[in-house]
């Protein structure tokens, strides 16, 4: 089957292979578990026409294709995460053979166990904060006296505006850090992702925090209460949250 690759969705610990019969992967392909000791690689067959290096480069330019694969990847990762401790892999991870999958799993064994121990019984939650550009952190500023010449008044006005922008940016950064620190205290771990591109999301306001948090199952209510309290503590900041996700951002195994 030279034209077939193995798309590797996730590593699960103690997943019952039979439950994979009730879900499907990309292109409705059957899901399989490639096992090594207590770990299993969740995989399905994909065509190397689409998922080989050349095919991937072409397809990743296609938004509909990208979305469809991302959504399927996430569906399979969630399915496994709901049934066993699961470390999702980065999207579009493809191997040439089942043996290659098994060898990789064996090679990763120790580090995979560490990652799975870290994420067991935990899920990922996203919290994003936006500053409203119409509500500067600090109002006021000196109005130029009427006796001042026009050129001087202009320069003064420009300087005041620049100072106001700067103090707003600083206040935003401080608010973002305060929110992130507080949420991290109610989570096992927290990470700041890059702010999202407004042209992509269409969001209003300035995204000052794109945070993601690993939260104990037993502390989810506490975490969400903290998010709710932030909304009254920072009235000039809009706070959105999402989740639970499989712990994508906390399942990283760095290559040696």
């Amino acid at each position, binding site marked *: 089957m030279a034209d077939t690759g193995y798309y590797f969705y996730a590593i699960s610990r103690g997943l019952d292979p039979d439950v994979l019969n009730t879900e499907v992967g990309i292109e409705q392909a059957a899901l399989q578990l490639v096992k090594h000791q207590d770990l299993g690689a969740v995989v399905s067959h994909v065509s190397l026409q689409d998922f080989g290096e050349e095919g991937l480069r072409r397809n990743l330019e296609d938004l509909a294709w990208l979305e469809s694969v*991302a959504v399927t990847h996430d569906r399979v990762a969630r399915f496994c995460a709901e049934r066993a401790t699961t470390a999702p892999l980065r999207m579009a991870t493809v191997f040439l053979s089942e043996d290659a999958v098994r060898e990789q799993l064996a090679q990763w064994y120790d580090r995979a166990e560490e990652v799975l121990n870290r994420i067991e019984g935990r899920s990922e939650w996203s919290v994003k904060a936006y500053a409203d550009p119409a509500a500067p952190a600090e109002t006021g500023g000196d109005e130029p006296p009427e006796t001042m010449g026009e050129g001087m008044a202009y320069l003064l006005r420009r300087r005041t505006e620049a100072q106001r922008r700067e103090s707003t940016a600083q206040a935003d950064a401080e608010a973002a850090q305060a929110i992130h620190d507080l949420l991290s205290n109610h989570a096992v771990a927290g990470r700041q992702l890059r702010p999202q591109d407004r042209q992509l999301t269409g969001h209003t306001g300035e995204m000052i925090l794109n945070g993601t948090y690993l939260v104990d199952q037993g502390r989810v209510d506490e975490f969400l209460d903290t998010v709710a309290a932030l909304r009254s503590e920072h009235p000039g900041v809009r706070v959105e949250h999402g989740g639970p996700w499989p712990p994508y951002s906390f399942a990283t195994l760095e290559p040696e």
Partner: protein
Amino acid sequence: MTVVGNRTQAEANRSLQPVALVDLLDRVLGAGVVISGDLTISLAGVDLVQIRLHALISSVRAEMVPHDD
């Protein structure tokens, strides 16, 4: 705890809201287990991810934002 949305439906219709799609891509492209090695066909260098996201941004802009030039 509830899982948001009907994933299978969204998949069939390719109808995720832009924000939900970007949140998802932040995670499935930006994180997760990173693979290296000869047996991996392609993936998962940071550079490739950046290329993908740039391609995506250009493609969304082309659909959503009228071009001046």
